[in-house]
Every structure is written in structure tokens, then in C-alpha cells.
């Protein structure tokens, strides 16, 4: 673990793996909810880091956190969300080819995977989901699409994600869902908030 001061009121904690980030993020949430962390305005997990923004004494807080014993994340930790998916994505055949399976086997492989929202970014409610083993990681498309339809289930690198609204994107599209990924009137507004566990089931895409 490496702690880096960011300006006058933020702290960046760098870790070696996505699993360590998930474990530290869960620990930070536990301590914050218990009132044991002190004031933090934003707690932002990312690929290999957690940012604590809006803190009083970043260096002091960093020194404290560096002394923590952070337990690995328990498998069942975090709320579970089930999302029905239609496997109708234009890149389904390409992903199946990269995986070395028939297109019809992709839904079963995805359904057998428990994903976890590692972090959000790119757009409100866009969650970066980890959980696919390394042999199933696929590259981005060579040419990004100018418009990816809202609700597209997509893969790129170590991540899976669902586009909360139509936007440009270079991920490989394997399916689609009618699940509402983002609703500013809902609490939390993002269906895929960091720490949420996600299961994709094969269905007609209707939640």
C-alpha cells in the first residue's frame, strides 16, 4: 500500500490489485459508517487506487490507514443485483471466437460469473465490473462505435459494464438489458454502485 497526498485536502491510496482495492474500499465504508474515519466528502475507488477527497489532514490520515490490517473481501459481501440480459450484441460472435467457444455458450459463462462493481466513471452510473478470469479478458474494438445503445452489456480488458445511456464507446457488445442503470430520483441513483455484486441472467432483458 502506498499513500499519496493530492493537494491540500485529498489522499490517494495505491494498491497492487483490484481485490485489494475492493477490500480497502469496503473497510473504508465500514469505518465511515461507524463514524471512525472522520469527515470525507468523496470516497472514490478506481482500478488500483482509492481517492479520499475532502479530508482535513491527508498526510496524517494516510499514515493511519497505512497501519490498518485490511481483511480480504468476503465473497458474499455487498448487495446483490440480478440483471436479465438478451444476448443480441453485435460483437457476441467475436467475443465467442476470442473465448474459443460457440456464441450459444457465452450466456452460460457470463451467468456463472459473479461480478462486482469495482468503481464508476465515464458517465453517471457506468460501473466497471470485475470478476471475469484473465483468460476471458478481451481487447477493445479497434474502432469505437459513435453510438452504443443504452442498456448494452459490454466487455473490455478486465471489465464488464452496461451503458447507462447511449454514448460513444469502444467496448465489445454482447447483449442488452432494459434494467434502469441510472435514475437520479432513486437512492442510490446508480444500480451499479461500487461494492455491489452483479449476476447476469439470460432472459428477455426485462427486469
Amino acid at each position, binding site marked *: 500500500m502506498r499513500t*499519496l*497526498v*493530492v*493537494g*491540500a485536502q*485529498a489522499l*490517494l491510496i495505491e494498491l497492487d490489485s483490484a481485490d485489494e482495492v475492493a477490500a480497502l474500499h469496503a473497510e473504508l465504508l465500514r469505518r465511515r459508517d461507524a463514524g471512525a474515519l472522520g469527515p470525507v*466528502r*468523496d*470516497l*472514490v*475507488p*478506481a*482500478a*488500483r*487506487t*482509492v*481517492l479520499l*477527497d*475532502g479530508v482535513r489532514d491527508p498526510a496524517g490520515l494516510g499514515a493511519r490507514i497505512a497501519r490498518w490490517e485490511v481483511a480480504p473481501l468476503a465473497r458474499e459481501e455487498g448487495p446483490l443485483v440480478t440483471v436479465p440480459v438478451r444476448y443480441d450484441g453485435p460483437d457476441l460472435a467475436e467475443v465467442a471466437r476470442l473465448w474459443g467457444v460457440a456464441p450459444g455458450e457465452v450466456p452460460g459463462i457470463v451467468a456463472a460469473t459473479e461480478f462486482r462493481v469495482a*468503481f*464508476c*466513471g*465515464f*458517465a*453517471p*452510473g*457506468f460501473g466497471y465490473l470485475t470478476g471475469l478470469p484473465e483468460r476471458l479478458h478481451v481487447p477493445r474494438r479497434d474502432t469505437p462505435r459513435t453510438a452504443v445503445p443504452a442498456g448494452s452489456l459490454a466487455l473490455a480488458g478486465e471489465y464488464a459494464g452496461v451503458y447507462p445511456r447511449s454514448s460513444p464507446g469502444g467496448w465489445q457488445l454482447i447483449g442488452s438489458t432494459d434494467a434502469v442503470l441510472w435514475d*437520479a430520483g432513486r437512492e*442510490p*441513483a*446508480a444500480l451499479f*454502485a*461500487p461494492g455491489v455484486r452483479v449476476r447476469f441472467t439470460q432472459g428477455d432483458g426485462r427486469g
Partner: protein
Amino acid sequence: MAELLVVRAGALTTVQDRGRPGYAHLGVPRSGALDTAAYALANRLVGNPPGAAALETTLDGVSLRARAAAVVAVTGAPCPVRVCGRPVAWGAPVRLPAGAELEVGRAESGVRGYVAVRGGLAVPPVLGSRSTDLLSGLGPPVLSAGTALPVGPAGPGPVPAADAYGLPAAPSELLLPLRLGPREDWFTAASLAGLWRSAFRVSPRSNRIGLRTEGGPALVRARAGELPSEGMVLGAVQVPPDGLPVVFLADHPVTGGYPVVGVVPAGPALDAAAQARPGITVRFVRAR
């Protein structure tokens, strides 16, 4: 409900308040008024509570017609202000009779103007804020002619009796205090040392997301490879592969994959950045 009708929307006029901090983990930018002091002053001048929603204009002002009598104040970039064609004070409360047209003219210096109305703009809040977020599209749309902006009920605060505020001098140079880190080790020591002696210019491609620089020496990377995306703070100075610093402003993305060489503290320095016109010299000075 009282309303302001948009007669002339201006180049880029948005509703802004103090933004929506606290949602970065869901991918939501902070947003909010760029020149925080000018925005706060506009609200004070009309007796509003600090977080009331106001308009942020860009370079060429805005024209509004008051459907009912209203009290407004214009701050930020100095500009001519007229009511029904007659000059009135900038930086002071101005009474608009019902049906009167307020013309906020082209900025004489600076970039962003603020127009507060007593009672605040009562557009529906999203995640606790009425700010337009140009990066992610949250909040009300950019102003267009013909739009009616609802005005909320006046709070208990009086309209202060203060005189007009003096016009700020036009800055000829933008000095940004910079606190190095977290990724200064991505750059060569020589190019970092050179940063303090370098003059950049404000790029015309600057916007509410970031103040881009041009014309200065590129920061040189000391290492190859890519940085995994990490959380970004307001004022972060990100350095894309071209080596020219970008200072993140209110609509900045919540995560980014280019290394952050340092951070400009929020407050007067970023307020000044919000008013820096393209072509103005930018220098970075070591923050203590």
C-alpha cells in the same frame, strides 16, 4: 410563480449553484459555478442564501425579461448592464419592474459572468443541485431563447444596502499555485524544474471541464506505460501525452488515466482560472 424569460441566451449560459460534490463514486462530476467568489457575491447582493442557483454566462452575457418585478445582480466578468436600454450598476442589486428587460452585455475582461435573482432560480434539482453539468449532461439544459426560468420565493435575508463593488482589474497573467503530486514522479526532474520557469498560454479549447494550456514546453515523461484510471480532484493538473498541462475545473471527469503532476488549490486561484481568457499567459508557482 415569478419567471425570467430568456430573450437572448448568449454563447453559453448555464444554471449553476455549488454543484453536486459527494457523488464522484457514482461517476457524477462535481460541477457548480466556476468563479465561486463572484457567484457567492451575486447571491449576497440580492439577499439570497449562499447556495441559491444563478446564471453563469460566457463572454457575451445574456438578456432576460422579468415576468414579475425582480431584484437581480450581475458579477464576475465586468460588463455593461442595462434595464430597458438604460445603463444600471454592475456588481450591485438592480430592481427590475414587471416586464422589464435586463441586458447583460459582452464581458470587458474576464470570461464568466453571474446573474443572481432574488429568490434564486427554481429549476428542479438533480442530486441536490440545480447545476448544469456539461460533461455528463445532468441538470437543466444550456439556456436557449424562449426558455422560462422559474424564480423561487425570496428568503428572509434583506437586499443589502451596500454600494456597487469596484470593477476588478483585468488580469494580464494567470499565476497558479501548484502543489506537486501525486504523480510528479512520472516526469523527468529536468522538465519539472523547467515547469516553474515556463510560460504557457490559455488555450481557446478551454471549457468548464478544464483550462487547457498551449505554447509552453511539454512536460517529459520519465516512464513508459499507462496509468490505470484513478480518482481526480478539482484543480488537478493532468498531463496528457502531448505534455501540456490541463487544469481540471468544476465539470472535470471523476476519474482519469493521465498522470496528475500537481494540484491547484480551490479558491482564488481557480476562480481566476475561470476568468482567464484564451491567449493570456499562465505560469505555475510552487505552492507551500
